[in-house]
């Protein structure tokens, strides 16, 4: 089945600009044009784009996705490399989670400290830190 760009973006939930960008950076092959000059995408293209989306939703960067796409060509031989990439990503996410938790804790505490109608604002005070005099 061939998808015109409108149908492809609808199926994938992407913007046409994003789709063109993926093509431009080589993440997906440049779409072929039909006899009317419209870009068309095959099932294979759509599946590849779905893979890109899922990988992005899992937190992989476009560069990492490029590596995963290469590894995808031969998943059996490359499972060790995929695992290693996924492990690194998992550790990175764990670190981000820790940072986010800390940021959330700080902000929640500041919100509780702020009555919203006092003469000074603890949130701004905190962000100001110790201004240079």
């Amino acid at each position: 089945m061939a998808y015109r760009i409108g149908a492809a973006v609808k199926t994938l939930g992407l913007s046409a600009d994003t789709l063109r960008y993926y093509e431009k950076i080589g993440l997906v092959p440049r779409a072929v044009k039909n006899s009317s000059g419209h870009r068309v995408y095959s099932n294979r293209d759509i599946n590849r784009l779905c893979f890109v989306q899922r990988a992005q939703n899992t937190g992989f960067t476009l560069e990492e996705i490029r590596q995963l796409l290469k590894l995808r060509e031969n998943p059996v031989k490359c499972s060790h490399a995929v695992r290693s990439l996924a492990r690194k990503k998992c550790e990175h996410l764990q670190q981000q989670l820790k940072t986010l938790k800390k940021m959330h804790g700080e902000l929640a505490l500041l919100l509780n400290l702020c009555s919203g109608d006092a003469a000074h604002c603890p949130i701004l005070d905190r962000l100001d830190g110790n201004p240079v005099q």
Partner: protein
Amino acid sequence: MSSPAGTRSMSVEIELFYAPWCTRCAAPRRRLRALLSGPAGRALAYHERNVLENLERAVELGVTATPALAISGRLVAMGRWREARLRALIAAARAGA
């Protein structure tokens, strides 16, 4: 404020988190100082921490409001607390120290 120092090593640490503008903090702070200036304050380290200046520490302990009280690195009370409970917590911390 530093607490009265005892002769034993100070293994029990009390941290009171307050905010300078917090009207609910003044009374517990005063009562805590009074309590710790007596026998209950022997051989422990007492720190009053401005929450804004010690935000990371406060968050690490799980403080979400002031006043908040931590004993030996564990958040034990927020808002209000009874003196009897505080005495019991200090005694328990001493026993476990």
